[in-house]
């Protein structure tokens, strides 16, 4: 599905050139969930943003679905991007649109009719557990709720490739598990390829088929993981107390 070939990216700043990504080659197989992990500032986000050429690499090729996005004419690039969903690390929601307005945007761009749009928006908001916040504005949401709106927005137009930059960083374990279930579900039933940048090892263990490790702008490791049995049973999640103390609680405060 995706094949980065020797991509590099450097930034000029006052004190010289900073090489954020240095000739990384990476393949994401169609239909898999691929994790990208590594320390803070390693270049994970930069790498992910190259996969839909939001960040144009200084050199190297970005092959997605057989096309080199770096050389694609603008119009075709736009079309290609329509089938790629993206969840940004900082969400990038539209503050002047309601939650449902935000989720609806990619559908409007795809020219989908009002009624269908409304249905799909509701559906996506249900996926992320926010159907009751549909008419709120982002400023009224908690951090995790904003993140979930961003997820719903990325799912709305049924992309065939989903790029997620730390999609569960603001979510508690319970909500994280729910979101991961959604991702696993669309991956399994619809064959959506998913790339997840994350620093939560549990997330990687839970859903990823393969992992790439990025450190200081270089790809330092890459391996496959055993696929998990499937849907985790949310109803049986231990309580916070149990998670922290085991079955037997301690002194109360």
């Amino acid at each position, binding site marked *: 599905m995706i094949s980065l070939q020797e991509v590099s990216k450097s930034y000029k700043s006052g004190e010289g050139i900073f090489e954020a990504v240095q000739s990384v080659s990476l393949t994401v197989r169609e239909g898999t969930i691929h994790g990208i992990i590594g320390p803070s500032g390693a270049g994970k986000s930069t790498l992910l943003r190259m996969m839909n050429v939001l960040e144009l690499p200084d050199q190297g090729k970005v092959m997605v679905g057989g096309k080199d996005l770096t050389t694609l004419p603008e119009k075709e690039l736009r079309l290609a*991007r*329509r089938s790629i969903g993206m969840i940004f690390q900082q969400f990038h929601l539209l*503050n002047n649109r309601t939650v449902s307005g935000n989720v609806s*945007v990619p559908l409007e*761009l795809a020219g989908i009719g009002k009624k269908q749009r409304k249905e799909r928006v509701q559906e996506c908001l249900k996926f992320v557990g926010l159907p009751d916040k549909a008419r709120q504005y982002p400023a009224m949401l908690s951090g995790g709720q904003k993140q979930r709106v961003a997820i719903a927005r990325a799912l709305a*137009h049924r992309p065939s490739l989903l790029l997620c930059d730390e999609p569960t960083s603001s979510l508690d374990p319970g909500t994280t598990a729910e979101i991961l279930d959604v991702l696993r579900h669309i991956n399994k039933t619809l064959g959506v390829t998913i790339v997840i940048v994350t620093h939560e090892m549990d997330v990687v263990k839970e859903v990823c088929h393969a992992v790439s490790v990025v450190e200081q702008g270089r790809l330092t490791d890459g391996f496959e993981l055993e696929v998990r049995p499937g849907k985790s049973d949310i109803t049986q999640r231990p309580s916070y107390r149990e998670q922290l103390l085991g079955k037997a609680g301690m002194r109360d405060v």
Partner: protein
Amino acid sequence: MFDFSLMLEKFMEYRTQIAEAVGETFLMVGISVLAAILLGLPLGTMLFLTAKGQLRENVTWSVILNGFVNVVRSFPFLLLVVFMIPVTRFLVGTAIGTVAASVPLGIVSIAIYARQVEQSLFEVPRGVVEAAQSMGASKLGIVCKFLFVEARSGLVLGLTTSTISFISYSTVMGVVGGGGVGDFAIRYGYQRFETELMAAVIILMIILVQLVQFAGSMISRWLDKR
């Protein structure tokens, strides 16, 4: 300082002329606001898009569009009115009267509002444009569905400030017989030394400007959900 009953009396005495002047002001300013929205908004958007580091960075167009705005704004307004007489005549058939006065006023309005638009769009966080691009939005889509949405409260405030400028500019349109409240105040009040009448008319203008500003601020605040 002023005798209010005398002011009222004068006001009543001249009420038909004042009503006419108010109508002229509304016509001139109305046309200008329309021109600002229909042409100033796109022009300002183009100024923004073609600027360095922006979506449609293009030095040539940037220079041309900036040039146009700067040239219009450089002209002493009176001379712009004169320079534009042939254009005005071509567009509306005559160079005298309220409608004719609206032509140069409209041109200035377009230039003034375009700058405000440009400035408001510069305030939109970059992330918004990135989100738009990641969804494969066209340039037009980015502008209409993202930039305008996120900049809307600024766009409205800018239009408010601009409209008040248009009212201010309209006061000198007496030169080509444009009329209007400001011209009325100058001609009847200042030149004929009817101080009370002038004061009354200026109070009318103050009310008008207050209303515009108040409405603009309210709408802007209401549109701002950030």
